[in-house]
């Protein structure tokens, strides 16, 4: 594990020194702000109507009507921006040959890789946390259950970890950042939409597809439910792809 700390700190610095981070953060927050605004507006209209209709009033629920769609929306934006954050992680080192420095310092490959992974995760989570002030403000207007908000953010962090692990793998395959981003986006999208085909798959296959699908496991978090199976899924997903990346880094050096 030697190497985690220096690489983590270097990566965090590189992120904050590059314009990519600021552009990605800006776009992320504008879009998520828009989604939040529309969810709240919709809820607002419904609650006005609810004042005339006592039947409706019972069903009005800020968790169900604002938080859940909001977290689902954030996961979609993450799908779009995550490849942009991960694309440079290893591809850039290879392109500029700084990998020759990094891998001749007394650092283990695992340490380097985990340093990079957690640095990207931290950066993405910082961007995600940028959405928190709007929720806090919303919480002053209505009764929000903060445990649900917490579960949502935990889910987002786990989802981000899964996205990033796949993105880092894509970045290790090439020295071209565009290719890394496209590969990561394609792979993530595939893991996302594969869940849709459960409708026409056989019962066994449907169960498998349901389990594989990266977003199905997030739905319970968005509802405020922390299911240990979902946590395990994301951890296994991230570990698996990081492990593949590690093997890939090694084999690349064997082949030269």
């Amino acid at each position, binding site marked *: 594990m030697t190497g985690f700390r220096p690489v983590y*700190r270097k990566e965090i610095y590189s992120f904050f020194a590059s314009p990519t981070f600021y552009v990605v953060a800006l776009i992320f927050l504008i879009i998520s702000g828009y989604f939040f605004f529309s969810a709240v507006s919709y809820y607002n209209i419904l609650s006005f109507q609810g004042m005339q209709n006592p039947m409706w009033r019972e069903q009005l629920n800020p968790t169900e009507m604002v938080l859940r769609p909001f977290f689902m929306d954030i996961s979609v934006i993450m799908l779009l921006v995550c490849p942009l954050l991960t694309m440079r992680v290893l591809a850039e080192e290879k392109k500029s040959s700084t*990998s*020759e*420095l990094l891998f001749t*310092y*007394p650092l283990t490959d695992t340490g380097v890789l985990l340093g990079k992974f957690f640095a990207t995760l931290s950066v993405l989570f910082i961007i995600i946390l940028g959405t928190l002030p709007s929720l806090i403000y919303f919480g002053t207007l209505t009764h929000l259950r903060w445990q649900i908000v917490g579960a949502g953010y935990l889910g987002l962090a786990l989802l981000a970890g899964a996205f990033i692990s796949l993105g880092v793998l894509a970045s290790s395959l090439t020295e071209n950042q565009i290719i890394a981003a496209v590969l990561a986006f394609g792979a993530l999208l595939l893991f996302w939409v594969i869940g849709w085909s459960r409708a026409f798959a056989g019962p066994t296959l449907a169960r498998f597809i349901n389990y594989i699908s990266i977003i199905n496991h997030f739905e319970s978090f968005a509802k405020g439910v922390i299911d240990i199976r979902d946590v395990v899924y994301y951890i296994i997903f991230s570990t698996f792809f990081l492990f593949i990346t590690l093997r890939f880094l090694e084999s690349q050096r064997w082949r*030269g």
Partner: protein
Amino acid sequence: MIEVESITKRYGSLVAIKDVSFTVEKGEIVGFLGPNGAGKTTTLKIITCYMPPTEGKVMVDGIDCLENSLAVRKRLGYLPESVPLYKEMTVKRFLNFVAESKGIEGKSRGKEIDRVTETCGLSKVKNRIIGHLSKGYRQRVGIAQALINDPPILIFDEPTIGLDPSQIIEIRQLIKDLGEEKTIILSSHILPEVSQVCQKVIIINKGKIIATETPANLTAQLQKSTRIVLQVKSDSQPIEAIIDKLSNIQGVKNITREDHNGTLIVETDQSKDLRPTISRTVIENNWDLIEIKLHDFSLEDIFLELVTKEEEAA
């Protein structure tokens, strides 16, 4: 200090180096010489544990590069050929990252950075962003990162490439100074550099070592004849006349005209110094002798000879 035991490296079907063996003793400055694409960088990358050899093994300080690569890497400072640096960082921050990577504790890190910036003449640009520095300064940052944590072995891959002449002299001097207490391997395709700085030269061509010698020995070995450079002048006689006369001297093997200003190169037997005879002949024939000197074989000549011989044999 460094033992390379018959290493071979293949990239797919391409054989980059084949059965390369050599040893480097403690405190030596060794020049690694060869034309572009000869396998210099590949060999250095293997010694620095960047990649493993396909066959053979490398021991650094008695430690196997494959078995305990971290321990080997701790003893090495490496400057890769392209001088890769994190361009978005300042010099200080970059060196801090290197120091942290090499396992220097937080407290002594600042001191270590001060030491290497001092050695490499970087104190003035410490707080500048590396991407904004000139090529010469970047080269020094590259050397500075190799020096951090004071490793006993330094490996420089083409350290003076792309620098201007005054920078080249500075870097060479720096390497010489470092060589007083460290073991250095230096790769280069520039021959004077190697003859000036190194105590031992390893010549590699097409992935194979073709000679391992001191620069002086190499010269002696290959010097089968002596060359005398001579400049003569006459207003009345054609140059051919004096060439004729000189060819008649015993021991002269061959005379060639170097240029149209009367410069001649006379190849003679090694056994005898023919300069007095030659100068006398020139004067006696009413020519003016402007210059006469012995021409040393440069490493260029030796190198070319070795490489061509190798190619003829193959």
